[in-house]
C-alpha cells in the first residue's frame, strides 16, 4: 500500500466519521413530537349548555363590579422533570403586547388575567423560560420531556395543593400557535404550561417554537 493510498483511505475514514456525527446530531435533535393534540383541542371547546326549559329572564342588581375571588397558583412542582418553582402573577408587557414571563429564569409566571386555580372552566396559563443567555437553564428547560400521564402539583395562595395529569404536549411555530385556545376562559378546567423550543435562531436570539403542555385535574 502506497503512502498516497493510505492518505486517501484516512481521508475517507475521516469523511465517514464526520458524516456519522452530523447524522447522529441531526437525529438527536428531532423534536420529541406532539402527543394528545386532539385531546387538548377537545378540552378547549365550549361546553354546550342544555337549552333552558323555561326562557325566564335573569335579573341582577346593577351593582358596581367587585373584585372576584381568584386563587393564584404560587408554587408548581413537577417531579418528572425536577421542577419546583415559585409562581408569580404576571400580565402583559406594555411594549410588546406579549406575555410577561418573569425575568428570573428559575421563576415562572401565571397569567393573572385568566382563570385561577379555583375556576370551574377555562385555561390556567403558566409560562416559564426554557433558558436565558445570561442565566443559563430555566425552570422549564425540560418541559418538552413531559409525557401523557405525568403528574404535577400546583399549590394556590389558599394553601391547597391541586394535582394535575398531563394529557398533551404540543410544539407549534410561534407564528401558528392557537393562543386564543390556550388563553380561553371557557371549556373544561385545565392547566396550560408554555415555554420555548424548537430550532434556535442565534442571530435573533429567539426560538422558533413554543412547547405547550396541557394538564387536567387528576
Amino acid at each position, binding site marked *: 500500500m502506497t503512502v*498516497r*493510498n493510505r492518505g*486517501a*483511505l*484516512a*481521508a*475517507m*475514514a*475521516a*469523511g465517514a466519521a*464526520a*458524516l456519522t456525527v*452530523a*447524522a447522529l*446530531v*441531526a437525529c438527536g*435533535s*428531532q*423534536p420529541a413530537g406532539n402527543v394528545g393534540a386532539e385531546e387538548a383541542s377537545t378540552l378547549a371547546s365550549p361546553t354546550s349548555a342544555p337549552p333552558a326549559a323555561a326562557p325566564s*329572564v335573569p*335579573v*341582577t342588581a*346593577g351593582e*358596581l*363590579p*367587585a*373584585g372576584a375571588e381568584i386563587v393564584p397558583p404560587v408554587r408548581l412542582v413537577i417531579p418528572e422533570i425536577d421542577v419546583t418553582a415559585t409562581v408569580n402573577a404576571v400580565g*402583559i408587557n406594555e411594549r*410588546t*403586547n*406579549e*406575555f410577561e414571563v418573569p425575568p428570573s429564569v428559575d421563576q415562572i409566571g401565571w*397569567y393573572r*388575567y385568566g382563570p385561577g386555580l379555583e375556576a370551574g372552566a377555562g385555561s390556567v396559563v403558566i409560562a*416559564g*423560560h*426554557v*433558558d436565558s*443567555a445570561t*442565566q443559563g437553564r*430555566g425552570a422549564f*428547560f425540560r418541559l*418538552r420531556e413531559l409525557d401523557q400521564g405525568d403528574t404535577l402539583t400546583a399549590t394556590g395562595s389558599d394553601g391547597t395543593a391541586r394535582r394535575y395529569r398531563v394529557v398533551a404536549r404540543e410544539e407549534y411555530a*410561534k407564528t401558528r400557535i392557537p*393562543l*386564543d385556545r390556550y*388563553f380561553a*376562559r371557557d371549556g373544561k378546567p385545565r392547566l396550560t404550561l*408554555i*415555554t*420555548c*423550543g*424548537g*430550532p*434556535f435562531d*442565534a442571530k435573533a*436570539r*429567539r*426560538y*422558533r417554537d413554543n412547547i405547550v403542555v396541557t394538564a387536567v385535574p387528576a
Partner: protein
Amino acid sequence: MQLSYFRRVAAGGAVAALAFAGVGALTATPAYAATSKVSVVHGIPDTPVDVYVNGEKTLDNFKPGDVAGPLNLEEGEYDIALTKPGEPVGSAILKVDNAAVPGGANISIAAHLDAAGQPKITPFVNDVSKVDAGKARLIVRHTAAAPAVDVRAGGTPVFEELTNPNEAKGDVDAGSVKADVVLAGTDTVAIGPADLDLREGTATIVYAIGSAEGKTLDVVAQTITGLHSAPGGVPSGDGGQAGTGVGTWWYVLAGAGVLLLLGGGARVATARTPRR
C-alpha cells in the same frame, strides 16, 4: 324514443326550478343568524314596573337599579311598554312602539329620566368588540336628570362634558380605579367616589341615574364578559441551549465528510488502476 327524451328534459327542468325555489326560500329568511342580545336597565328612581314586550309581560316587578337580560331577540321591531306592577298594558306609564332591534347586536335598553326629569326609554348599542390583552372597557352613560358632567378616575377627568342621553367610552388598563362624577368643569362631586374593579377582557357599563334635584343620583352597572384577547406571544427563552434545530456547522461538517469520502475514494480508485 323522442317522447321519453322530452320527458326527461322536462323532469330535469322541474327539478331545477324546485332547486331555485328552495334557494330563494332559504335566502329570503335571514332567521336565526340575526339574533341580538338585549338587556334592560332600570334607572327611574322609586318606580318599580312590569315590562311588556309586544304586549307580553316579560319582566315582573322590575326594580330601579336592576339589570335584566340578556334576552335573545330576533332582528325586528318591538313594542316596549312599562306599567305600574300589576296594571294592564293598556295603562302603560311609558311606551315605545316599533323600537328597531338590529340583527347580531348587543343592546341595552335603558328606562331612565331625561335631563329635565321626564321618564323615557333610550336604546344603546354596546361595543362588544375585543379589547387588547390586559385591557378593560369602561363605558359611562348619562341617563340622569342632571346637567353635563365629567367622569374622573383617580381625580383626573377621563370623560368630559357628558350629557343626557349620551355615552363615553374607552379601553383602559384592567384593575381597580377610584371614580367619581362631577358637574362638568367643576370639582363639585355629583356621584361617588366609588371603587371600580375593571376586570380584564370585560366591558363595564356604568349608568348615572336618578335626579340631581330629587337628590336621587346613583349608578347602575352592567358587565359584559368574554371580550378578552390572547397575548401576542409567549417569549420564554433566549439562551439557545434547548435548541432542537440542526445548526449550520453540522451541515458544514456533513459537507466536509462527503467531500473527504469522494476525494479519498477517487484517489484510491485512480491509484489502483495503473497496477493492472
